Each structure stands twice: as structure tokens, then as C-alpha cells.
């Protein structure tokens, strides 16, 4: 099974690759759209700002490939936000695979970034959540978030409710970092490896 990680020029690829390695899967990192287009499963990680992220995708020609990718695709953190229509961060147009916009968490609750372990509240069952207990803690680090929508599988509360896990058809996303979320995070990554293509 070929699992690939899109190298967007962002820096946290190693931790995602190591997380899959702990599950016994060797992920291939690539920035070449023609290579990534062949992946059976694709992960779009990301740290940094939305406009820098989108710029990096466009520079590498990854935006088009991601816009059409037909097999399971998992966006993590900024990677999730880039799969939506828009981000208010730098007023950035994103990939539009999911509908909605990333909005700032400033002024909604406590300190921003929302940083640390917070609970998942499951609102729709899905194979990606298989075996996951409700109210499990996972690790977040972000300043922008997507409002709950019909694609939301789990919400998290930080002043306001936001989408913590989303799915629409073959597109999956986690606002938190499954690669850094202990056992529940590993379970979600394993479920992503196991979902039907």
C-alpha cells in the first residue's frame, strides 16, 4: 500500500512520517504532483500560515493535484484548513474540497493559539473514528478553526465549538495533530490506513 505525504515546504513532515512508522507503514515524502497523484493514500500536513501554505502548494503545482485527488486524503491542522474554500488568515482562497472557511479563534475564549490537549465530542460515527472513545483528549495547536458543518464528525470547544474532525467522501481532516496525540491519535491514523479507498 502506498502512503504518501505531500511536502509543502512546511517543517513538520518528520513527526507525521514517524507516527506512521510506529504503525509499521513507511510513508513516502514527495513534493512532485505527478508522483503524489499516484498515492493510494495521501496526507497533507501543515504548520504555518494559510497564505504561505497555499503559496507553497501553488508554487509546486500541488493545488491542482489536491483539487482532484480521488483516493483517501487526510489534511492535518493547516492541511485541513487548506482543504476548505477560504481562510480568514491573510484572506486566502484555498482548495475548495470542503465547504466553509477558517476563522480566527481570537476573542472567543482564552489565549490564542489554542494550544494543548482538548476533548473530541463525537457527533457522527464514521470508520475513521472506529474504536475511539467519546471525550478523548487530543493535541491542538492552532489560531484558526472551521465552524461545525454537516461534514463535521467531531467538535471541540474552545470558547466556541469548531470542527475537530471532518469527512466528506474521500476527504478527511483533523484540526489537531494525530501524530502527537498519543494512543487516540495513533488509532485515527490506523483507521485512515484502514478506510476503504
Amino acid at each position, binding site marked *: 500500500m502506498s502512503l504518501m505525504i505531500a511536502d509543502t515546504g512546511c517543517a513538520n513532515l*518528520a*513527526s507525521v512520517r514517524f507516527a506512521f512508522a510506529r504503525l509499521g507503514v513507511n510513508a513516502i515524502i514527495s513534493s512532485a504532483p505527478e508522483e503524489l497523484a499516484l498515492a493510494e493514500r495521501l496526507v497533507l500536513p501543515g504548520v*504555518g500560515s494559510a497564505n504561505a501554505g497555499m503559496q507553497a502548494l501553488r508554487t509546486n503545482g500541488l493545488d491542482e493535484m489536491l483539487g482532484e485527488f480521488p483516493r483517501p486524503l487526510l489534511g492535518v491542522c493547516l492541511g485541513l484548513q487548506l482543504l476548505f474554500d477560504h481562510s480568514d488568515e491573510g484572506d486566502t482562497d484555498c482548495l475548495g474540497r470542503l465547504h466553509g472557511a477558517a476563522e480566527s479563534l481570537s476573542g472567543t475564549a482564552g489565549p490564542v*493559539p489554542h494550544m494543548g490537549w482538548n476533548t473530541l465530542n463525537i457527533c457522527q460515527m464514521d470508520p475513521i473514528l472506529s474504536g475511539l472513545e467519546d471525550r478523548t483528549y487530543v493535541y491542538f*495547536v492552532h489560531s484558526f478553526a472551521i465552524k461545525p458543518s454537516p461534514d463535521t464528525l467531531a467538535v471541540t470547544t474552545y470558547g466556541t465549538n469548531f470542527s475537530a474532525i471532518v469527512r466528506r467522501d474521500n476527504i478527511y481532516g483533523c484540526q489537531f*495533530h494525530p501524530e502527537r496525540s498519543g494512543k487516540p491519535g495513533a488509532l485515527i491514523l490506523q483507521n485512515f490506513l484502514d478506510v476503504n479507498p
Partner: protein
Amino acid sequence: MLARRIIPCLDVMDGKVVKGIGFADHQVVGDAVELACRYSAEGADELVFYDITASPQRRRVDAAWVSQIARELDIPFTVAGGIGSLEDAQAILAAGADKISVNSPALANSDLINVLARRFGSQCVVVGIDSFWDGQDWQVKALTGDPSKMLNTNWKTRDWIKEVQSRGAGEIVLNCMNEDGRRAGYDLKQLHTMRKLCAVPLIASGGAGCQQDFANVFQKTGVAGALAASVFHKNIIAIAALKSYLREQNIEVRS
């Protein structure tokens, strides 16, 4: 609800975890990767590695060692120590660290914070501050890893806290130097004062001695996390027991 974080801090010197009293006289307490895995298994929420020899020796933390930690650990970790440029930070993050923490190099060149935040985002830029009560006010010290090279700065802690946030710091770790290693409790007065100046998460550091010190710092200062070293390294406090205790005090912690 967002849980308060318990953060063991591993001061690393030449690949070994060490602990001093008041930042001096270091004793080896164990191997970095081994201790990291132990703390993760026991329920630590996050780890911080300070390469305390890096800044005084003007060299960067070793990226290969960071990668070894990243391979094993499934909780977030921050690396600090001599990160003085975009390239330094890139190497550490590429090796698998989740956050980088800058201290002395940011005091020498405060624009470093802006550069790092612009490139990597504020969420992975932590600023560590070594703060010392001089009898009149809290003052920022630099190069505290080596007492012979330690410097006073012109920054009052409260001003530096505002400055680093305006430059893009995403989290602040406040090391209260007068309390460090003495296990007599966190500096509640200072942390309470500084917390009010922080729009980003503030992490308390220095002085933890017993479980109640953790409850006090969370209840009385509103910090997002509490960092400690010797109480964990010397098995004075077990993380799992600490977390049950905090839960009994109605403090939200990760189970």
C-alpha cells in the same frame, strides 16, 4: 475543555539529562530518549528539552538527537538551546520537534522572533524567559545555562513579555530563577502578575516541590501549563498520581 498541561523539562547537556540547583552544579540524572519515553508513558502532556550547553558554547542543539526523540515520542515536544537563526529552527523542526523555544538569541536579536513566526507560524515559536527578582523588580537574564557566562539584560520581565508577544511569540515559558530547583513552590506572585500581560499561553517554570504546588499554580495564576524537572527526575512526584490529585481538586487534566 482544554486541559492544564504537566510538562517535564529535561535539561540536556551532551545528550544526558542533568539537573542543577539555581542553574549551577549539574548532576546527570539519565538518558534523554529513555526519560522522554518514561514520562510519556506515565502521562506527561508535553516535554521540553533545553540544551543548556548550546547558547553559552555558541552552538546549536544536535538535530540527530532531536530526530531520535521524534521517532519514539507520540506527544508534543519543544526544543530549546542556541537556536539563533531561521536555518537553525528549520533544522530542528524538520528533525521532528513540534516547537522551538528561543531565549538568549532572542535577547541578542529580538527580530529573530518575527522572522521565526513569519516563516513557521506563531504556534511553534516559544519564548523562554529567565526572570530574576533583584529586590525591586523582575529582570530578564541571558545565557543562564553557564553561571560564568550569565548576563544581566536591560529588560524588565514585564516589558520583555509584551515585546515578545508583539513580535509573534506563540507561547511563553517563564522560568522564575529565584525559585528554580528549590522545590518550595512556584512564584505565584510573579506568575499572576505576568499572566495578566499574556494573550498567549503562559507556562510556569521553577519551584515545583509537591503536588499542591501544581494545584496552587493552576488555581491562583491561570497558567496553561506547569513545567518541572527535579520532582519528576528524582521520583518525588509521579505524574499519574499528580494528575489524579489535580482531578480531585477539580482541575482539568488529560486522562
